């Protein structure tokens, strides 16, 4: 007989292992754990309460991410779970894992820099490294890119355009 706490630990591990395989549909190299979307996993009266938080309010990937979590858990026979969406505290790129940042760079997207403490309207453009040639001689083309979370940049040395996962 397993003790209650061992059972819980094993159960929790199974849920974690399942969630580790769920990726962001827009940035498929990142898992939802890398992104910091999963906020907590608690067992309350035999039900796994999985709290997730959206990256951007209008991010269309969120519906798909939730559906993929369900598919993955169901496929692994984990039945007693509930997914809650929480808004507070608001998601920040500071929650992205180191592994996630590394994977982003390898994928060709400049990873987010630390959030600035104070909002400045102008002149706070950060020195960004080109994910391809690592030159910092880069410039912002637009703060808005192909998805909510990305900005458009270009490298002035290797001349390649690249995406920046903007800090949030």
């Amino acid at each position, binding site marked *: 007989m397993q003790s209650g706490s061992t059972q819980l630990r094993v159960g929790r591990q199974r849920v974690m292992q399942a969630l580790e395989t769920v990726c962001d549909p827009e940035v498929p190299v990142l898992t939802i754990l890398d992104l910091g979307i999963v906020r907590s996993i608690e067992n309350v009266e035999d039900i796994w309460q999985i709290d997730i938080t*959206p990256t951007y*309010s209008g991010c269309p990937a969120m519906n798909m991410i939730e559906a993929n979590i369900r598919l993955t858990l169901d496929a692994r026979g984990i039945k007693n779970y509930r997914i809650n969406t929480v*808004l*507070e505290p608001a998601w920040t790129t500071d929650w992205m894992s180191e592994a996630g940042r590394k994977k982003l760079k390898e994928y060709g997207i400049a990873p987010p820099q630390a959030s600035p403490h104070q909002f400045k309207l102008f002149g706070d453009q950060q020195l960004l490294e080109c994910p391809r040639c690592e030159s910092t001689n880069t410039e912002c083309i637009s703060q808005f*890119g*192909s998805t909510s979370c990305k900005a458009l940049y270009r490298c002035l040395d290797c001349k390649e355009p690249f995406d920046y996962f903007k800090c949030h």
Partner: protein
Amino acid sequence: MSDSKKKYILHLADNALILGHRLSEWCGHGPVLEQDIAMSNIALDLIGQARNWYQLRARLDEADITEDDLAYLRDIRQYRNLLLLEQENQDFAYTVVRQFLWDSYHHALLSDLMDSSDQDLRAVAQKSFKEVQYHLKWSSEWMIRLGDGTEISHQKMQTALNDLWYYADECFVSSEYEEELVKNNVITDPSILAKAVKKMREEIIQRATLDFPEEVYAQRGGKEGIHTEQMGYILADLQYMQRTYPNAKW
């Protein structure tokens, strides 16, 4: 109090939905690709924010309603958005000026709501605020770039600013439901927010080398459901599908 809170949440939701809809009309028609993408992104943020507000409002309702009922099945007099936000896109100059007038207020409003004593308002405000910082950067930059640009761009911006000025200050005039929430220390009186917002607007308008418009009577009514003629056209477009095929899903 709870009735005022419900009305106020609708006001916030409708603001985001209606401007989000207006900006989405630019999709595929932007002056350059990057700005087409920027406006669609801002539209997406706003529609996401509208969903968060509508979902919250639906949760507070006695009846079993959803966010879609609120967005698609209300009539014009039940919409509480600001008149500024329903004004037509006209051209890029109008769109930029409308966005800047709104962002300057929206930014200050959310920054204040983030510290509200009401947890519901606080949560959505915190989430939205980060996005609106980028909106304000975008619209301020374009105000300056076009205002302090060529003779033609300057003139177009000045015309847009003068025309939209009638709708610039409606946000500062409290509705009854706002007054009640102010009394209960849930929100700050909009006329108090006005000081910082006006200062910021002045600063950017000056940097954009535009003339500050003369003081005009602030058109109002949106917060209470009295709209300009533009609003009917938006709703016709927005609600057509649900009205024609009730409960259609895809």
